[in-house]
C-alpha cells in the first residue's frame, strides 16, 4: 500500500514538473487574462471591455464573415470597434449583410469603402443615409460635397459643404475632448476651403478670397490656402498681393515646414505679368538650382527601395537616420507629411498597437495570449507598410510635380526671351528707370492695415503681405527717346 502511494506521489510530481517545463508561465506571478470561450462576437466584446480594441479586430471580422444578416447588436459592436481602431478594418462588410435599418457608423463605413472603390453613386447613397446625430455626419457631408463637385454638380456640392461646416461647428462646441475639437475644426476648415474652391471655379474671385479669409491663421489648413488665395488674387490681376501671399512661405515659420513647387511657378508668373524680367529669371534659376538635386536624390531612393520596403517608415520615425534624411533632402517633405491627418492617424495606430502588445505581455503567457500578440504584430506590420506607402507616394507626387513645373518654368523663360527679342526688333524698350516699389501700388481693403516690412516676419502679419511693385510693362520707343534727347540738348 505504502509503496503504491509513494509511486503515485513520484508519478504526479514528475507530471507536474513536465507541465511546468512545457509552460513556464504557470510558475509566474503574472495575472491571467480571463477571456471566456464563446462566439466571435462574445470574445470581441470581452476584449473591448478589457480595453484591447486592436485585439478584438480579428474577432469582429470573423463575426462579419460568419453572419449572414447583421443584428442591431452586431452593428453596434462593429461601430464601436471601428471608432476605437479604424474603419478600414471592417471593409469586409457586404451590402447583403446589412438590414434596411442600419445603426450609427455603419453607413459611414460602407460609404468610405465604396468611395475607395470609386463607386461614387453608391457611396453617395450610404453617406446620404447617415443619421444627423452620427459622430461622422460632418465628414460624410465633406465626402458627399467632394463627390458632387467631381461630378460637376456644384450647387449640391455647395449645400453639402455648408451642412458640413454647420454640423462640425456644433459638434466642436459640444465636445470637451481636445482631439475631437481638433478633428471637427479641421473638418470645418476643409469644407470652408472647398466652398472657396467652388467660388474660384465659378470665376468669382472676390467671393473665393472672402471664403479663404474665414479660415483662422491657427488652422492646420492655413498654409495650404495661401497658395490658392494667391491664385485668386493673381486672377484678379493683383500680382503684388499674390507675391506678398507667396513670400509667406519664405518666412522662418513655414520655410522648412511646407513645400509647394507650384508656389514658385506662381511667383515667377506674377513677376512676369509685371514685366520684371530679371526677377522672373532669378526665380526660375533658383527653382532649377534648388530642386534639381532633390529630384535626383528622390529618384535614386525610389529606384533602390521598392514598394514593400520599410525604409520609408524608418526614415520618418528613426532619429538616428536624421543625417540620411538631410542628405536625401527629405526634411521638408516629412514635416509637410506630419500636418496630414492620415499620416498622424497611421503613426498613432502603430503606437496604440505597440501599447496593446506591451499590455498583453504583462499577462501570464499562454497560447491565447501568444496568438493575440501574433495577430497584433501582423496588424502593426500592415500599418507600418501603410506609412511607408504614404511617404513613398508623397515622394512620387512631388517628383512628378517638380518635373512638370520645371517644364512650366522653361515655358515662362521662353516666352520672356521671345518678348525681349520682339522689343529689340521693334527698337523699343520697357520703362525700367522708374522706382522699384511704392505704397501707391498696394491695393488695400477697408479691413486691411499697413505696416512697413523691414526684413522681419511677425506671426500676426503672416499671410497679409503685399508687394508695392509698379508694372514695368509700359513700352517706349528707343527712336523717340533719342530724338527727344537731341531736342533737349539742342534747346540747351
Amino acid at each position, binding site marked *: 500500500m505504502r509503496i503504491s502511494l509513494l509511486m503515485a506521489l513520484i508519478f504526479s510530481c514528475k507530471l507536474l514538473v513536465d507541465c511546468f517545463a512545457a509552460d513556464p508561465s504557470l510558475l509566474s506571478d503574472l495575472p491571467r487574462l480571463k477571456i471566456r470561450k464563446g462566439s466571435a462576437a462574445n470574445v470581441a466584446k470581452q476584449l473591448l471591455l478589457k480595453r484591447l480594441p486592436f485585439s478584438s479586430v480579428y474577432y469582429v471580422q470573423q463575426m462579419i464573415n460568419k453572419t449572414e444578416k447583421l443584428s442591431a447588436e452586431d452593428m453596434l459592436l462593429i461601430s464601436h470597434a471601428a471608432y476605437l481602431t*479604424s*474603419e*478600414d478594418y471592417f471593409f469586409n462588410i457586404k451590402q447583403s449583410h446589412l438590414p434596411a435599418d442600419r445603426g450609427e457608423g455603419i453607413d459611414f463605413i460602407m460609404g*468610405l469603402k465604396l*468611395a475607395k472603390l470609386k463607386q461614387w453613386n453608391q457611396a453617395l447613397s450610404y453617406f446620404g443615409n447617415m443619421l444627423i446625430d452620427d459622430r461622422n455626419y460632418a*465628414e460624410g457631408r*465633406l*465626402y458627399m460635397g*467632394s463627390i458632387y*463637385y*467631381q461630378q460637376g454638380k456644384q450647387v449640391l456640392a455647395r449645400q453639402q459643404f455648408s451642412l458640413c461646416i454647420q454640423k462640425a461647428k456644433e459638434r466642436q462646441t459640444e465636445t470637451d475632448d481636445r482631439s475631437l475639437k481638433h478633428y471637427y475644426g479641421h473638418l470645418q476648415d*476643409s469644407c470652408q*476651403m*472647398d466652398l472657396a*474652391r467652388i467660388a*474660384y*471655379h465659378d470665376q468669382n474671385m472676390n467671393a473665393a478670397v472672402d471664403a479663404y479669409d474665414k479660415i483662422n491663421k491657427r488652422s492646420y489648413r492655413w498654409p*495650404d490656402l495661401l497658395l*490658392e488665395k494667391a*491664385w485668386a488674387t493673381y486672377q484678379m490681376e493683383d500680382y503684388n498681393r499674390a507675391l506678398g501671399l507667396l513670400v509667406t512661405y519664405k518666412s522662418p515659420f513655414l520655410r522648412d515646414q511646407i513645400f509647394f513647387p*507650384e508656389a514658385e*511657378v506662381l511667383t515667377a*508668373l506674377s513677376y*512676369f505679368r509685371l514685366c520684371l524680367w530679371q526677377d522672373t529669371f532669378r526665380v526660375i534659376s533658383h527653382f532649377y538650382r534648388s530642386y534639381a538635386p532633390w529630384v535626383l536624390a528622390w529618384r535614386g531612393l525610389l529606384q533602390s527601395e521598392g514598394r514593400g520596403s520599410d525604409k520609408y517608415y524608418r526614415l520618418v520615425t528613426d532619429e538616428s537616420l536624421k543625417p540620411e534624411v538631410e542628405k536625401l533632402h527629405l526634411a521638408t517633405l516629412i514635416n509637410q507629411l506630419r500636418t*496630414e*491627418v*492620415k*499620416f498622424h*492617424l497611421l503613426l498613432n495606430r502603430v503606437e496604440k498597437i505597440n501599447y496593446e502588445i506591451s499590455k498583453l505581455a504583462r499577462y501570464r503567457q499562454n497560447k491565447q495570449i501568444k496568438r493575440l500578440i501574433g495577430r497584433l504584430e501582423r496588424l502593426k506590420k500592415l500599418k507600418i507598410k501603410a506609412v511607408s506607402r504614404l511617404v513613398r507616394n508623397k515622394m512620387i507626387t512631388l517628383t512628378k510635380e517638380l518635373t512638370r*513645373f520645371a517644364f*512650366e518654368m522653361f*515655358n*515662362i523663360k*521662353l*516666352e520672356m526671351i*521671345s518678348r525681349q527679342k*520682339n522689343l529689340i*526688333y521693334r527698337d523699343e524698350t520697357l520703362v525700367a528707370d522708374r522706382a522699384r516699389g511704392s505704397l501707391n501700388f498696394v491695393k488695400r481693403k477697408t479691413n486691411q492695415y499697413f505696416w512697413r516690412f523691414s526684413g522681419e516676419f511677425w506671426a500676426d502679419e503672416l499671410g497679409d503681405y503685399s508687394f508695392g511693385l509698379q508694372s514695368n510693362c509700359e513700352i517706349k520707343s528707343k527712336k523717340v527717346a533719342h530724338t527727344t534727347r537731341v531736342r533737349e540738348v539742342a534747346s540747351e
Partner: protein
Amino acid sequence: MNRVYDFLFWATITALVIALMTPAIANGESSKGKENVVYKYKQYEFIDLSNMKVNGRLAAPGDISVKKRERRHFKRQLFNRKHFKSNMVRDIKTLR
C-alpha cells in the same frame, strides 16, 4: 589618139600639183601677218531697265510679290490654374 591621152595625163598631174601647193602657200602668207590681238570689254555699262518693255503674256498666273505685314507673335500657353479639383481629391485621400 596617144597625144590626147598624154595631154590629159599631164593636165591631171599639173592640176594635182597645183591643188596640193595652194594651202602651203596660203599658210606661208598667214604666218607672215600674225599679230597680238587684244580684246577690250566695256568696264561699265548703264542699262535703264525702267524703260524696258517686255511684250507678251504671263505663262503661269500668280502673284510673287511679298506684302509688308506685322510680324506674327505666337503666344505660349503659360500655366494657369482653372480649378482645384485635384487639391480636393488630395484632401480626401489624406484624411483617412
